[in-house]
């Protein structure tokens, strides 16, 4: 077991693997919907150390990866304008748009800046009253409270040169789109701990009941992921479907209520297009009417900009668990982290990038 020594507690890791092997009597497919979990699974070889009957499917858990091409093109359009300071989290800069990325815009003279926090962008707007400062507000529920606070603060400070390009997505509707699909083959889910640290666990109960599917909330550290898998397999083998929290040191049932209140004030639920997957109903947040004047799509008149996806890139099938990354013909050939065709090869949390980094260059078809 070449990977076992890399767990911070190899003895506990071995006992968890042994227990999963002991209780597994049939084939189960478990999906994680968290890029951090995907990365840990591939880095630590968790998928290879599990019994053959337990298959892990890497779901759409990386918000960088599911931001649609059309939104990337909107970002590129806005960032190219001479009066704009375009601020983004760093991992969006290499995500390819239709013809270029934010790095190229920057090297062509665009003022593109990487910020640690959306509040940094608000401060930049205050310091640069003659510029339009735009923040690229992407992310799951974990990031939304920070982005909401940035918009709220800009309004409080009366900053009319600050706006946000919003592409927020929500985890529970994505899980429902997968588990409710006629060709679903996922038996149980790992839910993302940090998403739940904001939203709590209560949103997942109705999915467990409606689809009779176990959902276990867990963290992104290898032992957390492993314990989450153990709990899902145990439920499946017992014929149970329950919502379980394996990450109670961070996640409470009710979540972070002040953060939820700020999100509710600034954002409203909307339909959202997921890159590689398509439209999912009520699966995102956009600015609520009271904050619409901070919407960069309207301010820069790019609402209708759209773009078709690459025909070569099969990221959509990867994100839905239909193929493993190394089954895509472009993987490691036309598509590498240096020359990514799709976002799953860009973000360190994308399944393709994780497979590439940890040298999973060949694989067996999952046979859907």
């Amino acid at each position, binding site marked *: 077991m070449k990977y076992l020594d890399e767990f911070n507690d190899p003895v506990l890791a071995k006992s968890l693997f042994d227990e999963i092997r002991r209780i597994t009597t049939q084939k189960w497919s478990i999906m994680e919907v968290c890029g951090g979990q995907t990365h840990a699974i591939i880095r630590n070889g968790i998928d290879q150390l599990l019994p053959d009957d337990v298959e892990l499917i890497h779901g759409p858990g990386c918000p960088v990866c599911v931001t649609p091409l059309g939104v990337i093109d909107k970002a590129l359009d806005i960032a190219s304008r001479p009066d704009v300071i375009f601020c983004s989290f760093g991992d969006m800069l290499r995500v390819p748009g239709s013809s270029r990325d934010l790095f190229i815009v920057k090297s062509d003279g665009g003022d593109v800046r990487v910020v640690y926090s959306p509040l940094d962008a608000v401060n930049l707007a205050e310091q640069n009253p003659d510029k339009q400062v735009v923040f690229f507000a992407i992310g799951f529920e974990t990031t939304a409270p920070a982005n909401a*606070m940035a918009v709220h603060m800009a309004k409080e400070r009366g900053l009319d040169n600050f706006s946000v390009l919003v592409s927020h997505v929500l985890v529970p509707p994505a899980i429902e789109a997968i588990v409710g699909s006629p060709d679903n083959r996922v038996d149980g889910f790992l839910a993302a701990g940090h998403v739940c640290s904001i939203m709590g666990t209560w949103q997942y109960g109705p999915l467990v009941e409606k689809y009779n599917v176990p959902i276990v909330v867990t963290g992104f550290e290898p032992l957390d992921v492993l314990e989450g898998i153990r709990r899902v397999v145990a439920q499946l083998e017992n014929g149970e479907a329950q919502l379980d929290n394996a990450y109670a040191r961070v996640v409470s049932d009710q979540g972070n209520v002040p953060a939820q209140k700020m999100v509710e004030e600034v954002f409203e639920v909307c339909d959202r297009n997921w890159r590689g997957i398509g439209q999912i109903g009520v699966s995102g947040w956009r600015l609520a009417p009271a904050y619409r004047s901070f919407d960069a799509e309207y301010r820069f008149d790019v609402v209708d900009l759209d773009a078709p996806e690459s025909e070569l890139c099969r990221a959509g099938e990867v994100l839905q668990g239909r193929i493993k990354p190394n089954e895509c013909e472009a993987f490691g050939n036309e598509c590498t982290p240096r020359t990514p065709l799709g976002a799953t090869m860009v973000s360190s949390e994308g399944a393709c990038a994780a497979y590439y980094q940890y040298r999973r260059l060949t694989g067996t078809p999952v046979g859907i």
Partner: protein
Amino acid sequence: MCLAVPGQIVDVRDERGIRMATIDFDGISKDICLAYLPDIEVGDYAIVHVGFAISKIDEASALETLQMFRDLGILEEELDVTGGVS
């Protein structure tokens, strides 16, 4: 993208009506916002995502997680010395 790094609150202050703090991530200092953890105090540990404390955490768990980031050599990356949120 949704990872969060634990750190210890070093000082707390009010900046234009918003509760802010200096936090120590295993030797790296950052200014963060405490608006979503109104009851947290100096000396406590919290996990922090894109400049916001989002959940209180006990010291032992915090130190264990920080050690994992150190072992993987990604603490600076997670704290955006390179600019990522992932």
